[in-house]
């Protein structure tokens, strides 16, 4: 069977695209579950990307660079927490402000520090796991990968344990649903939200560092190019659940990889259509297995997607989808999910609402 463009190189490209947004997504997941909608994620990633690059260039150590990038993300997140958690300012407005600020600060410092020179650092390179890297298909992608990839994969069970199996996780999730209850249990809601926000900043910084010194070895102005928002979309599309976020990041990474590959071809190969039909079929099957009943609209839409994709796979017309469609695909999918066409997503109840204690807070 000819898998066409679905080779291991595509899988590797998908992982490379997914890792930065997975870092940021795992950060944002925790922060949103705690009730903090961090729109400034993009800015924190950009901070991480730039300061990691600057740090690596100045100290000559990539590891120190990564740490500096993470610290920069945390610093910006601390500002976010100070304003929105501590002072109760509007989270959305603060987030937008931080994005603008981060674009300005990184651009200004980059021009001041490097002038017009394009500095290229060597990246960390791949670490192979002896033995496993010989495995077919997964060996090349998962066992001869960048340390950032290993770190991202290891973070998934860590976040799972943190969110769902620890007392902290319970406090975090409760702070996003019913902060009064957390308060009544004698836990400091603001403290929980501070920690969750800083965690998001750290991981966004790490995601940014992955982009600059992990994968490319360069920094360019505005290099995150919307990946922070993509991570935000992944958290929403993943319905604020860990498994969902991981799946969303994989899907978005794959779309990006396919888009890159298709730019070189004149027509969408039939394998892509088959894959789309399969994905839609699996999604429907999963929904039915979970005992969800599909409405008339959803059933018709699913049937239409599968039918059209199969027809295109068989007819193989000379058809090239614009790459912009693939790039917009994650956001379109997220909107559909929000509107309840791809399963209902439910926001944490206290998301984006500042918490004021009824009595003690009044000055």
């Amino acid at each position: 069977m000819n898998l066409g463009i679905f080779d291991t190189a595509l899988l590797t490209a998908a992982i490379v695209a997914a890792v930065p947004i997975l870092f940021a997504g795992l950060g944002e997941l925790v922060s949103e579950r705690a009730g903090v909608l961090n729109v400034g994620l993009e800015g924190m990633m950009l901070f991480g990307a730039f300061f990691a690059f600057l740090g690596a260039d100045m100290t000559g150590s990539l590891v120190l660079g990564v740490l500096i990038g993470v610290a920069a993300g945390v610093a910006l997140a601390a500002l976010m927490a100070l304003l929105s958690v501590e002072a109760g300012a509007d989270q959305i407005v603060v987030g937008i402000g931080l994005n603008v600020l981060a674009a300005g600060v990184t651009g200004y410092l980059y021009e001041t520090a490097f002038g017009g020179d394009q500095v290229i650092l060597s990246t960390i390179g791949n670490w192979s796991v002896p033995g496993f890297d010989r495995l077919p298909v997964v060996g090349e992608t998962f066992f001869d990968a960048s340390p950032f990839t290993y770190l991202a994969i290891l973070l998934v069970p860590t976040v799972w344990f943190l969110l769902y199996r620890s007392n902290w996780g319970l406090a975090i999730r409760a702070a996003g649903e019913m902060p009064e209850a957390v308060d009544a249990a004698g836990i400091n809601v603001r403290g929980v939200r501070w920690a969750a926000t800083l965690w998001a900043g750290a991981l966004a910084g790490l995601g940014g560092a992955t982009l600059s010194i992990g994968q490319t070895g360069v920094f360019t102005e505005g290099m995150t190019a919307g990946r922070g928002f993509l991570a935000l979309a992944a958290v929403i599309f993943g319905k604020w659940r860990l498994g969902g976020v991981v799946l969303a990041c994989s899907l978005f990474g794959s779309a990006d990889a396919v888009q890159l590959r298709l730019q070189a071809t004149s027509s969408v190969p039939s394998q892509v259509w088959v894959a789309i039909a399969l994905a839609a079929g699996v999604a429907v099957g999963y929904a039915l297995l979970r005992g969800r009943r599909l409405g008339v609209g959803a059933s018709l839409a699913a049937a239409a997607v599968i039918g059209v994709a199969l027809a295109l796979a068989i007819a193989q017309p000379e058809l090239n989808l614009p790459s912009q469609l693939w790039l917009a695909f994650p956001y379109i999918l997220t909107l559909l999910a929000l509107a309840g066409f791809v399963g209902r997503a439910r926001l944490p109840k206290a998301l984006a609402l500042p918490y004021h204690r009824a009595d003690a807070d009044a000055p």
Partner: protein
Amino acid sequence: MSARRIFYAAEPTLFSVLVAIVALAIAMVIVALSGNSPAAALEALWEGAFGSTSRIASTLNAMVPLVLVALGWIFAFRSKRVNVGLEGQMLIGGALSAAVALEIGGLPLAVHLPLAVLAGLLGGALYAGVAAWMWARRDVNEIVSTLMLNLIAVQVISWLVRGPLQIPGSDLSRTAPFPDSSRWPQLIADTALRWDVLVPVAALVLAAFVLNRTTFGFRLRLTGANEEAAEHAGVRVKRVGVTALAISGGLAGLAGSSVLIGGQTGTMTDGFAAGIGFEGIAVALLARNSPVGVLPAALLFAVLQQGGGLMEARLGIPSNLVLVTQGLVIVFVAAGTFLLRRRRRARVSAAGTGTGQGAVVDGSAVEGVA
């Protein structure tokens, strides 16, 4: 007592002025730290914005989309809808306006130009309508949906300027120049100032009137202050919210249209909205969501934009400093709004006798302060 009254009434305005001054001061500290003279930087900033007729014209021209976007934010915000999709609505409105400008030929200016302007309004309103519909019918938070729609709009424009609207016989990613019949005529010859400068003026007067003097404006404020109470008073909250979002998007669409058919280059390129959709939010915040306050706030941002250019050209100070200043303004305003509210609350509870009077006066939402 009355002097104190005046001070309290003026406090928000004083606060905004203070925010602008502090943000500028921090920017100047940064300038000094990177080895430039703040005095020279301020001089360049001033000259870049007001140094000649042509520069003043450019500054006024830069105010046009800022004022429109800020009014758009205010309209939605009066009913407590948070439209962070103004950037996307600018892009789609502008694109529709550009399509009308390019694809319909042989019309006189008196027909073609109004059509192109209307297309901008409509495009922005419809695009905001998507978010409005999702909010009203599917209970989707408009903050999240408008953020997603922004990112989709970016891709739509990227596709348009490389696909259907690309300049024929070229691989440049831009459209052909708009025909003169679709462009705003120049107001002062050989400057950036075109007649579209009147659009935000008209929009401002209209917005102030609608918001403060009509039943619709009252419904908006009522909905914004307390949705449940408004519902009980017979206001159709969903309809009010949808209308507010559509008007908000329409104003952003007008801004996008103005950037294109009222702009200097006369073509559409990638990213022509250039973050104005977010800058306009900062303008509205600095204006404390008052339509009249938008004018001085937009002027400040336009001065930064235009003066920043000369600062870079003359002194080599990266124009990203402007972004830093704008970001500081947004962050300070967000923080200060909270502090002001707290001061007012403290005042009210000190003045009142604690019989519940305070809670009524403290309905800060009525003033449209988040």
